[in-house]
């Protein structure tokens, strides 16, 4: 309990840790790279961030309950393929089919984790394989890429813009605001914190721990499916090769945002900031332009390290 007090005292600081890093990154990039601050670049940054943010939002809930969801990358890809396929049958099918199927797989994750006491890591790892297999099965081993008709209303969902900013940005923003409200201002949100903070105690306090877990994994699956649908609309096709390793990006983003991997503590805002950080780094690597492709991952790794170490030091 000694460490906890320190944690409270600097809770604000901690949350600001990522925000401070982001601000510094943005300011430095802006000054160093003239093109960084261009409206086009910022629009693209926000758009790219929005897909990841939708996935990471679900991951935030899962991680706060003390779990982890490795299946989101595969579900993201599967969602895209289903949406593209569904777009042949109209807007609603395109949007709902991925939500239902991916949400369904999330639900199964949740049921297995909550009802059978299996580790989330391994259950969702199996789902990662399963969803990828399912994707291959419905695309003839990946030979078929379903296209979204360029003039369909569904494409508008991914490509429409307001002042040049794509719809997915607004959708992601709205979902994050909603997610933040759910987390902090509803009974379900409190249950999420309690489940991750001390599961046994939560059970004794009458928190419906199992139901909470089922819900967060369902949510995470659904959001991954939604991100896939948005991506399919944006790409105008159900690309089969996306989403590999996206789960690790999502986890990294959530953790950079100050959410405790052991559960019980975290914020949606932090996750959004984490998304911003990752995307800005990627963008800066591009702005530098001369970096050998093999060095790029070294730089990403070093940067990830710096952020988590800094955060840890701030937390002390």
């Amino acid at each position: 309990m000694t460490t906890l007090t320190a944690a409270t005292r600097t809770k604000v600081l901690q949350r600001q840790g990522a925000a401070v890093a982001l601000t510094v990154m943005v300011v430095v990039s802006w000054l160093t790279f003239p093109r960084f601050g261009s409206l086009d670049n910022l629009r693209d940054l926000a758009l790219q961030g929005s897909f990841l943010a939708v996935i990471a939002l679900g991951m935030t809930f899962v991680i706060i309950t003390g779990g982890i969801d490795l299946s989101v990358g595969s579900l993201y890809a599967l969602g895209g393929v289903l949406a593209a396929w569904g777009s042949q049958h109209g807007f609603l099918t395109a949007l709902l089919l991925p939500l239902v199927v991916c949400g369904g797989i999330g639900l199964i994750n949740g049921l297995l984790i909550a009802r059978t006491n299996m580790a989330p890591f391994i259950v969702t790892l199996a789902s990662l394989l399963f969803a990828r297999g399912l994707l291959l099965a419905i695309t003839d081993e990946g030979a078929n890429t379903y296209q979204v008709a360029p003039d369909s209303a569904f494409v508008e969902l991914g490509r429409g813009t307001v002042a040049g900013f794509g719809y997915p940005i607004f959708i992601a923003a709205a979902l994050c605001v909603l997610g933040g409200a759910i987390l902090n201002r509803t009974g379900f949100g409190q249950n999420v914190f309690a489940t991750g903070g001390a599961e046994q105690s939560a059970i004794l306090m009458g928190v419906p721990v199992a139901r909470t877990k089922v819900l967060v994994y369902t949510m995470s699956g659904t959001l991954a499916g939604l991100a896939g649908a948005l991506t399919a609309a944006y790409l105008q096709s159900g690309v089969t090769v996306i989403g590999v390793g996206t789960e690790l990006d999502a986890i990294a983003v959530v953790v950079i945002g100050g959410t405790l991997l052991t559960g019980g503590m975290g914020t949606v805002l932090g996750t959004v900031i984490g998304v911003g950080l990752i995307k800005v780094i990627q963008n800066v690597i591009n702005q530098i332009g001369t970096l050998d492709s093999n060095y790029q991952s070294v730089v990403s790794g070093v940067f990830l390290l710096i952020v988590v170490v800094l955060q840890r030091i701030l937390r002390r």
Partner: protein
Amino acid sequence: MTLTAARRRWLQDNGVYVAVGALLLFNALFTANFMTLGNFTTQLVQAAPVLIVALGMALVIGTEGVDLSVGAVMALAAAIIPLYLGAGPVPAILMALVAGLAAGAFNGFLVARVGIQPIVATLALLVGGRGLALVIANGQLVPLHDPAFLALGTDDVLGIPISVLIAGLLALTIAGLTSRTTFGRQLVAVGGNRRAATLAGLPVNRVLVGVYAICGVLAAVAGVLATSRLAASDPADMGLLMELSAITAVVVGGTPLTGGKVRVLGTVMGVVLMQLVRATLIKHNLPDSIAQMIQAAIIVAAVYVARERR
């Protein structure tokens, strides 16, 4: 009532052996040319690097940690081999192991001293480590020709391939380490309740750094063996997704991810099970889609049986 409970308990402890047995039986009946010495040798040789990595992973998981960087460490080891192979296989292998040790110790330092959660601490090396390996190797696959080094991957002793022998010896060593040594008991205590272990005066940091270092060295050993078997240093692909295979094998083998317990024989069996599953799917020429879904189902089933009840 108690009988079924006891039976359930037995299945829980021995589920992975039952699964291996069932799969062997299935293959004996339905897979052509399965019950041959050559085939078993092939399976063991293929499983050896995974097993070596999984042994280290089991220790890390025992401390309530996880090491995502093992694949990247294998790539690092692979990248280093050709740099020193000119000076002979022994220096080359030593340098690769030193790199693994350093990488592992670094992970351990981050986890124990800096206090970063294992997944994130090792994620950094997962992201950066392979890049580093590629930078070292200039992004290139290097074919290797040193006969002594290649013998490691091709030769055998009394019919047992060297890599299998090494994996077996390492499994025995790790089993002894966990059950018979102070270090091993301290390791599970740290995984079971780190605060209590600290207050009991255990060298918690030293144990953690040690465990990650061992895991790093074992990953490097696996990288060396796999490289010699491939007869080429291939940092781009060496050990790709190995972290997931190793974790799966460990968990399927009955070691809980919540720490405080290490099952070495279970881990061996977990590796064998996953190897047999892969072999069966290939031999029956199933398409990738079906193969992945079946693997998912088998993982869930195996872990379901071995799960700890509340």
